[in-house]
């Protein structure tokens, strides 16, 4: 235990850098994918042929191992293997594959009579989409967002195997030091803590923007 504190005292700043980098590499892709998934999910929800193509593509993308994708992207994009852009793009693809599906599922689950009521009250399609359909779809969409976020936080560590930063560096550091425990334990604790904090934040946002889920009902 004291070894862990010693390690933090002497390497605190590099641990902090790794943590900050980990947060960026894990969460930026989720944010990009979330913004892209809303319009794409709407298309998938609305047009049956698009649904088939998009969901099949998504499940194939999801099947490709992350380490393989991380190593193949430089060849396709012309980037360097050590470029963090590869990580961001790879994780964006995974998150997108998941979020397009859950966004479409969420929109599918909205009661059509509610939409008819909104139309009857004079809502134009665009306003209806943003103020009625999307908010009602949010619980399902955010469930997908939680899964994508937790998956990303644990997947970023893989990037350390090919020399890109994040908390995974603490694992490879422990490896280089002859299986020295402190950095390994710190890395594990921090990445689980990060996943939990991100998850709790999304749940808090979900409670904030879906007040009807708590009001009455049961």
């Amino acid at each position, binding site marked *: 235990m004291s070894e862990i504190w010693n390690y933090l005292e002497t390497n605190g700043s590099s641990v902090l850098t790794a943590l900050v980098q980990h947060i960026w590499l894990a969460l930026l892709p989720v944010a990009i994918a979330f913004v892209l998934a809303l319009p794409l999910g709407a298309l998938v929800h609305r047009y049956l042929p698009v649904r088939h193509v998009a969901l099949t593509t998504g499940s*194939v993308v*999801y*099947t*490709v*191992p*992350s*380490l*393989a*994708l991380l*190593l*193949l992207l430089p*060849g*396709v994009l012309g980037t360097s*293997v050590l470029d963090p852009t590869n990580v961001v793009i790879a994780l964006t693809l995974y998150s997108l594959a998941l979020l397009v599906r859950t966004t479409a599922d969420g929109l599918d689950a909205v009661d059509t009579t509610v939409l008819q009521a909104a139309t009857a009250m004079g809502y134009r399609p665009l306003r209806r989409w943003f103020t009625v359909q999307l908010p009602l779809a949010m619980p399902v969409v955010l469930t997908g967002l939680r899964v994508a976020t*937790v*998956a990303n*936080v*644990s*997947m970023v*560590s*893989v990037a*350390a*195997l*090919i*020399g890109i930063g994040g*908390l*995974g560096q*603490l*694992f490879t550091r*422990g*490896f280089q030091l002859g*299986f*020295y*425990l402190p950095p*390994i*334990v710190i*890395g*594990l604790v921090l*990445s*689980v803590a990060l*996943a*939990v904090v991100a*998850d709790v934040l999304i749940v808090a946002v979900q409670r904030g923007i879906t007040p009807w889920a708590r009001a009455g009902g049961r």
Partner: protein
Amino acid sequence: MSLDYLLDAANWSLTSPDGFPQRILEHLGYTALALAIAALVAFPIGLLIGHTGRGALIAINLGNAGRALPTLGVLMLMLALVGIGLVPVTIALVVLAIPPILATTYAGIRSVPDETVDAARGVGMTESQIAWRVEVPIALPIIIGGLRNASLQVVSTATIAAYAGLGGLGRYLFDGLATLQYDQVVAGAVVLAVLAVVIDLVLAGAQRLLVSPGVDGRGADNSPTTNRPAEPISSTA
């Protein structure tokens, strides 16, 4: 992007110790071992929790926490505690595979309608008969879905075996990176991706063979009058 290494026939020799056939077999070996152990641990627990409804909260939370654990970190921890070899790699992969199998087994068993279970109990089936002959067959599509998910993750992650000094497809990735032979890295990544897709397709096929046609709806086009009595014998409800 050079495909020379991938397309070189010498690398596909069946007898070569570092050819693709040998590496694929090693890779499949690590994967199968980890999946078998994970299934032996997670399936009975998921079945018990799903059937009794007890301990669900603990199982779900443990499963979620397990999902957040980075496998690379678990591997390093095990290497530090146990030493180099197959054991730490297998433990790391088992830890990776347990959450999806446990969560879907539990969810699958819970999804069986209460009235179906009540009916089974009503005709005098014992609890273990209900679990094995009613709940498991009905939950099978969901349970196999979890197994597919787990095997996908384990196949993808079994590359770390090479990082711990063993074989498998990870060898091409790490050796290629270390010696800056990018065509070897590309070859390893392509074979790994194809292997993952093929395994998923094989399991999808197994799902069709194992799941009863009456459960997944394939039997639904049979005319109901030929299979069942047209009218209930008595309706007391």
